[in-house]
């Protein structure tokens, strides 16, 4: 062909190296298959040894043995397991009910009434989701247990008393409600502020009062969000380790997660085959719940509704003077649930002993902090956690970005499965993620050298946090029109070059958000560390969990304050830099 017909007459002749277009150094196909295989190996692979060893008569790394159902039989005949299951179910059911009630009420008050101070309450109720959960539990211990500081003040100066014992299933339900309500709140709030309020307006035009419109139209609209978040809270309550370990240990109240924990720590053979069998049961339960939830909600649809836009809807219930009364009530409840325990942690960390008998301000001391900062065990744990969070969050963010690009911006054959794979860790309890990697490393690396490095812990933490980071990242990707990469492709960029120069460049803020959330999650992670840490690779979250399980002290509180300060600083920076928001 003659080039004069193609080109502007004034165009220079194509450069001598014409045709030698810049290419990514890996072909598109290699990247796609590589990412997919890596994702499968890292995310699904480690589950295999657990399932396998639950069906095997000897530990896998010992060789020999044969297939058997014995482990499950042993589990089924252990009365302790059944009482743990009963406790777990009881706890999960009531914590879910509590969370749905509280979360929905606050969401309605904030989004559909003129309640005074509603913005403050909106921030307060999501606080437990944003801050490390362990710190809040420790704070509740210090303030609201039978010997708690606030309990004493309450009993001394008012006719009221705390109507539950924190160290009982009922107390754990209250704690679970505190931690679960923000999840329900965010979902309900998302529906209320993104859903259009024309239906409610229609009801009002038809003569319904605002309150009636709320009950007859708004509440039914919330049903999908409540079902969805309720199932999530239920699953989280089933797998949680922190609450039953910290609050249940002193009274020997076990749940499924602590049963597994004690099998691991309490017996010489690490629980034998009962442990993987129990783990498989817990995994099945949580996976089923989340599958059910996906069926009901659609996998990704849920992420788009949790953004929390705040445009004022037309249907606002005017509370009048009654509003201030209600506001005071809400404020007292939310304050007692969050601010009081947090100040309890701070107070406990700064006083020799936190007791109602002595004015705490006469006992101020920095001893707990200096004890931590001079103890290599703790400084090591803090250093390890910071290292894992800094490096791990960066690697995990990069993985999430690439996985999301292959899943949504490529023509890769298996791309549809990738999203399910990356979201799967959500359905795996943290305890079991750790166990899975423990078994995997034990089989692949019999010498144990890799298992003794921080990488072992870091990989498990990264996989655990993957789904959460993905959920934060994906909406931004979905919001970028596909024409942007198509334009790059036809301009001469191969797949990876188009992704790198256009899409990833545009997604830097989203990666920032993802990084911040992953950083915080990995800094505070405890459950997944249970099976993995060695004395050299202790991490902050687990260190806290372990001391807290053995009783409260100024040391735990001080560790909690350190955790709190780092978390708050990182989230604050993230909010200023990237507009990070609380995310479920």
């Amino acid at each position, binding site marked *: 062909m003659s080039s004069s017909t193609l080109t502007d007459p004034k165009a220079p002749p194509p*450069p001598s190296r014409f045709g030698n*277009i810049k290419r990514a150094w890996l072909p598109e196909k290699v990247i796609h298959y590589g990412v997919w295989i890596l994702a499968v190996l890292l995310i699904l692979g480690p589950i295999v040894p657990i399932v396998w060893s639950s069906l095997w008569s000897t530990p896998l790394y010992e060789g020999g043995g044969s297939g058997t159902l014995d482990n499950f039989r042993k589990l089924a005949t252990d009365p302790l397991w059944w009482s743990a299951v009963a406790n777990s179910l009881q706890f999960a059911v009531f914590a879910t009910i509590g969370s749905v009630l509280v979360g929905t009420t606050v969401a309605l008050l904030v989004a559909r009434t003129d309640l005074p101070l509603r913005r403050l309450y909106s921030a307060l109720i999501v606080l437990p989701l944003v801050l490390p959960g362990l710190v809040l539990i420790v704070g509740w211990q210090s303030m609201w247990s039978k010997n708690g500081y606030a309990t004493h003040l309450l009993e001394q100066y008012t006719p009221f008393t705390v109507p539950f014992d924190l160290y009982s299933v009922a107390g754990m339900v209250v704690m679970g409600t505190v931690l679960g309500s923000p999840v329900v709140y965010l979902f309900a709030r998302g529906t209320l502020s993104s859903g259009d309020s024309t239906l409610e307006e229609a009801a009002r035009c038809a003569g319904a009062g605002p309150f009636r419109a709320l009950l007859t139209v708004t509440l039914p609209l919330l049903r999908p969000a409540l079902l969805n978040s309720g199932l999530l809270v239920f699953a989280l309550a089933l797998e949680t380790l922190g609450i039953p370990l910290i609050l249940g240990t002193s009274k020997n109240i076990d749940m499924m997660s602590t049963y597994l924990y004690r099998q691991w720590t309490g017996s010489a053979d690490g629980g034998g085959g009962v442990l993987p069998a129990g783990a498989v049961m817990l995994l099945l339960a949580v996976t089923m719940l989340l599958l059910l939830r996906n069926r009901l909600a659609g996998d990704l649809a849920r992420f788009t509704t949790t953004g929390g836009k705040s445009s004022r809807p037309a249907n606002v219930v005017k509370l009048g003077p009654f509003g201030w009364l209600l506001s005071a009530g809400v404020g007292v409840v939310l304050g007692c649930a969050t601010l009081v325990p947090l100040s309890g942690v701070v107070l406990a960390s700064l006083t020799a002993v936190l007791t109602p008998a002595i004015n705490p301000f006469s006992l101020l001391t920095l001893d707990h902090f200096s004890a931590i900062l001079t103890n290599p065990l703790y400084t090591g744990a803090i250093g390890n956690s910071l290292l894992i969070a800094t490096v791990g969050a960066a690697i995990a963010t990069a993985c999430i970005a690439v996985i999301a690009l292959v899943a949504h911006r490529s023509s890769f054959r298996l791309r549809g499965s990738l999203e399910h794979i990356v979201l799967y860790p959500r359905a795996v309890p943290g305890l079991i993620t750790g166990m899975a990697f423990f078994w995997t490393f034990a089989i692949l690396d019999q010498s144990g050298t890799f298992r003794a490095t921080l990488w072992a812990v870091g990989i498990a933490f990264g996989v655990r946090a993957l789904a959460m980071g993905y959920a934060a990242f994906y909406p931004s990707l979905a919001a970028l029109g596909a024409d942007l990469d198509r334009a*790059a*492709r*036809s301009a001469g*960029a191969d797949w990876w070059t188009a992704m790198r120069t256009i899409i990833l460049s545009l997604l830097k803020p989203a990666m920032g958000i993802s990084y911040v959330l992953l950083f915080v999650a990995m800094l505070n992670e405890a459950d997944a560390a249970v099976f993995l840490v060695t004395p050299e690779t202790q991490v902050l979250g687990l260190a806290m969990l372990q001391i807290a399980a053995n009783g409260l002290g100024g040391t735990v509180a001080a560790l909690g304050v350190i955790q709190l300060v780092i978390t708050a600083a990182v989230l604050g920076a993230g909010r200023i830099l990237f507009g990070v928001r609380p995310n479920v």
Partner: protein
Amino acid sequence: MSDLVITNLTKKFGRLTVLDNVSVTASDGQILTLLGPSGCGKSTTLWSIAGLLKPDGGSIVVGDQTLFNHDSSAFLPPERRDCGVVFQSYAVWPHMKVRDNVGYPLRLRRYKPEALRKRVDEVLELVDLSDQADRYPHQLSGGQQQRVALARALAFPPRLLLLDEPFSNLDAKLRERTRDWLLQLQRKIGVTTVFVTHDQDEALAMSDRIAVMSTGTVRQIGTPEQIYNDPADLFVADFVGTSNLLEGTVIGRSNGILTIKIDGLDQAIHVPSSIDSDGVVVAVRPEALALLPDDASTDGYEMTVNGPVLDRSYHGHHFRYRVGVGEQALVVETRERTDSSHVRVGIPRDGYKLFRPRTATAPKAAQ
């Protein structure tokens, strides 16, 4: 030569056939327009040419190079096709300055910095954006962004220029100006161009050839005049320009002459035609119709129709009347002004065409 030859192109999304054996050709340096209602597969065709979609059948050849051939499993990825594409959404990259947007294809092709700068300046001048080179896209108007997209498509001299409804986001005035400007530019550069639009005026004004599409098939290919004056079927007649469609019944047939009774008319008309169905549709362009004074001669008219004026409107360069004909209405566009409530409309002898009626499955044209 870089003729674009598309043969039997087929594309399915799941069980939905979006392109069904589409065959079109664009001659070297010419503008081929794909015209059709929304959802008919225009963009799909364009993206198949650009390599952004992989069709399920057929072939695409430019000059002597095969871009796609289903039978020999040939598929050139988009980055090797050297197509300049302007997207419906412009897809100007928001994080790059105008200059970097335009220079992107050149950087990928390892232009030296001076050569790159020179070429970018040249292309920006070509699209009248020289003074905007260092601004970001969000600082530009819609029309300017559109020109950035065009400059980017032209920066590395493309083998084919592919335009997907490039004017759809512009207001009417700007749209007309840009259309003329683009036409001139294309003539100057002489690049083979495929242009997608659902706007018939745009298609008629810009094209060397038009392919009218509907639900994944090509209904007619021809020059703008052929398409307008001699539509191949009812769909084309209805979609391109406006047509009065009068339903009629064949009441007699002899020696290839049909006698047709139009519902609501007393006289029958006699038309040579090979249509074998009982029902027919007579299509008449509104501007072909004339308002006749009562005493005017009817020479040159196939027939005249008397009817009440249902409504009238003024459109600047013509009046538009709707005249009742039995149950149906006839739209007349003429420069003549009349105030009477009854008029006589003349249908000129060669001013109408006969079509087989729409089958149940044929799509309704979007007007």
